[in-house]
């Protein structure tokens, strides 16, 4: 069930109505838990068992950590959580990648290891909820968070449906305290999340899905297109993935807000960044901060020598790339970003004029996304070669009118960063808001793509 589907509207209206009609906080939480499990089961009920297993492992480990001060036992419990969660994730997401890569490598060595790919379905959102549960256990282990005693609360934290399948990745420290307070509908500012949901919808259904129809054929056969079209497709894909993912995040944050819960921001106008470092502070913020807090800082953070720093950054971003998917394109994409982040430690890109900084970031990010989106490294190579004048082999061209969309998007992106819509939305009279909202929805829906496209980040 996608947020852009008509049936989600029915589902959410039911969840919303029952949630606010229930007078007890405990009943509301149980209702939300049931709704969250139903939401996930609508995709594939069999994989609910994985969420339940992950929930039980980390709940038990959390309680166990609370009951003991013995360092060895605590460490053992942490290992149980890491092995349990990363074992599930590793099998479902990475087994085939490593098995096939190992088989190819040993075959190249002449050893021929008999490892075969299995027919494994990747459970939706597994990377997201695995990272959430891991963060809980690590925080309890480090003593930053007390273990929760309520299994339903913890289960709701793991499975809360607005962010279950594609984030934002919520920390237990942010979410669990919200479950203790009883919320009141009268306290909820409905207008802001309603507008946010609509903006997310426009990004996803009207922009990302329509751009996909233009970009997909280019990535399927990059050799058939000319240089200008390849550049246009790379910029359009950068726009598509941003609209797709940030659109989902907007809708997730809005749905949670309508139910009275606050989710962390996941995007901060990334294409306004002037350095790659700045870009990563604005793109998929909850993942970046997760890697920063649970991997980069424990590895030494910024307080290491330049060589070690470069290795650390490349390692973290290699893993960040692998988090996105089990393919060499993601690995290379991660290392590519790690390289630019390391470079910026030694070359002060922030001293560039801001317009040049924007151009630099857009170019680096868009070329990176060519690697990210391509079906293989060879295809990415063909695409990247085609970006060089005289390097393209094809003659097909994309309609040049799409450049106008890119310019229009850039202007809107900058305008929204400067003048947030929240204030006019909050201050307008109720009747005016209702009329304008109704009219805008009616004007937006015709521009939705005809087919429902799954969110790109669902596959991660």
């Amino acid at each position, binding site marked *: 069930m996608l947020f852009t589907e008509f049936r989600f509207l029915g589902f959410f209206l039911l969840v919303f109505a029952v949630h606010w009609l229930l007078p007890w906080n405990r009943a509301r939480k149980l209702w939300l838990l049931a709704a969250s499990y139903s939401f996930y089961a609508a995709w594939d009920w069999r994989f609910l068992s994985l969420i339940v297993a992950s929930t039980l492992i980390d709940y038990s480990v959390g309680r166990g950590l609370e009951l003991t001060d013995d360092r060895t036992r605590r460490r053992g419990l942490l290992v149980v959580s890491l092995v349990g969660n990363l074992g599930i994730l590793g099998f479902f997401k990475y087994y085939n990648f490593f098995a096939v890569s190992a088989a190819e490598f040993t075959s190249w060595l002449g050893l021929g290891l008999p490892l075969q790919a299995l027919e494994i379905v990747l459970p939706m959102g597994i990377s997201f909820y695995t990272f959430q549960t891991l963060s809980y256990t690590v925080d309890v282990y480090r003593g930053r968070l007390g273990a929760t005693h309520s299994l339903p609360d913890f289960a709701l934290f793991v499975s809360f449906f607005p962010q279950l399948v594609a984030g934002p990745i919520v920390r237990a420290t942010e979410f669990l305290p919200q479950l203790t307070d009883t919320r009141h509908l*009268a306290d909820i500012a409905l207008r802001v999340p309603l507008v946010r949901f609509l903006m997310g919808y426009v990004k996803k259904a009207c922009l990302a899905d329509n751009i996909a129809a233009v970009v997909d054929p280019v990535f399927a056969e990059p050799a058939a297109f000319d240089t200008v079209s390849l550049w246009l497709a790379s910029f359009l894909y950068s726009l598509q993935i941003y609209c797709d993912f940030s659109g989902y995040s907007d809708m997730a944050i809005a749905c949670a807000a309508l139910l009275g819960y606050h989710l962390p921001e996941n995007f901060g106008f990334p294409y306004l960044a002037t350095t790659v470092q700045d870009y990563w502070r604005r793109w998929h913020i909850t993942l970046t901060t997760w890697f920063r807090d649970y991997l980069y800082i424990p590895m030494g953070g910024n307080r290491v020598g330049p060589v070690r720093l470069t290795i650390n950054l490349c390692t973290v971003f290699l893993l960040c790339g692998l988090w996105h998917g089990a393919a060499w394109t993601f690995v290379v994409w991660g290392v590519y970003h790690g390289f630019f982040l390391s470079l910026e430690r030694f070359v002060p890109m922030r001293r560039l004029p801001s317009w040049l900084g924007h151009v630099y970031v857009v170019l680096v990010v868009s070329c990176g996304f060519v690697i990210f989106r391509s079906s293989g490294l060879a295809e990415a190579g063909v695409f990247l070669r085609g970006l060089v004048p005289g390097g393209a082999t094809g003659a097909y061209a994309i309609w040049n009118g799409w450049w106008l969309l890119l310019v229009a998007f850039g202007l809107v992106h900058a305008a929204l960063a400067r003048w947030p819509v929240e204030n006019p939305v909050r201050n307008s009279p109720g009747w005016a808001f209702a009329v304008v909202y109704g009219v805008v929805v009616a004007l937006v829906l015709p521009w939705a793509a005809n087919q429902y496209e799954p969110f790109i980040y669902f596959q991660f």
Partner: protein
Amino acid sequence: MDRARGDRPSRVNESLGASPTVDRTASCAGRSAARRRVGLVLLGLAAFLSATWVVARVQGPLRAPSLRPQLEAVLADLDGYDAVVIGSSRIQRGVQPEVLDARLSAPGRPFRSFNLGVAGMKSFEADRVVSEVLAAGSSRLRLLLIEAPEWQADAKPLHMFTARFTDWHDPRRTWLVLRSIWRSEGSLLRKLELSWLHVRLFFTRLSNYGSHERFGSDSGWSGRVERMADVQGYRPLEISRGNAARRRAAFVADPSPYQAVVRQLRHRARGGALSDSSRTRRYDRESLRQQVERIEEAGLTPVYLVPPLTAPTADFAALAEEGLIPHLIDLRDPLEYPELFQVESRFDKEHMSIRGAREMSQAIAEQLEPVWTGVAAGDRG
């Protein structure tokens, strides 16, 4: 501000158990706030519906690529035709207007027909096309030949969320299809599933969801519309490539499965069992009655066609005997129309070849002649 003031005591009351007087004031304020919110939701809904109505008017009716050339060709020159034939690909590939025209033209009264068969067009979509033809109006058009409708609520999953399938979900047809579903003999779960599908499609159409392709879609079509007018809508499958050519090659390479089906059909025809009695029993008579009434009210004569199918259908002859079908041309009987079931008459199992279409058109023209004579006599009278 009032709302906030009204809510605050309510929360305090909840935790401290305040006096009933304060509670009553708070609950009044709460009810007032709730009424206000409901009012705003209704206002927003009204604004939404008004705007969707305006958008739908600005966009105009759907002209899906697979429907557009034929529909526009016939609507552009509706005064140039005496008869329009409406139906699925079986009609599109099976009726040659020039054969009908040659047979039914008389000195001083030429007959001209148009084939408005469209691949994949089922009963409710055909009914929408009928409405468009009736709404366009014509001083010359007298006959509407329509493929006998089965009023299917179902379709291939591939077709269900296409613009064409969505577009016939106006309130009247959605109501008809829902009624048809609940009168059918399927399981409760299947009925709920199909009903939900059609309700979703109704709201999809109501909201103009994904209809942007209708904006500015007037360019690049005139050539195709003109070509369609030149051939009066008939396009044989022999000129198609891709899937159709592959289907043809497979059919020609081994026609024995088809021949076996025809042998069974002959056997059933001998036993008078060409129709499916359960389909006849649960047939959606009301939808048919409404269609016939609308056509007759527009001053046209409806004629229902049953192509030479190999699969069982409802017993349209029985429906004609009930008085529901004023004129029926039923070509299903392989004993009565053996030439229509020969391998040479078929492009594939389902569709006629050019030769088969000529024979089918001759069979139609033969049965249509008395109907047309009566209509023409009525005009003269």
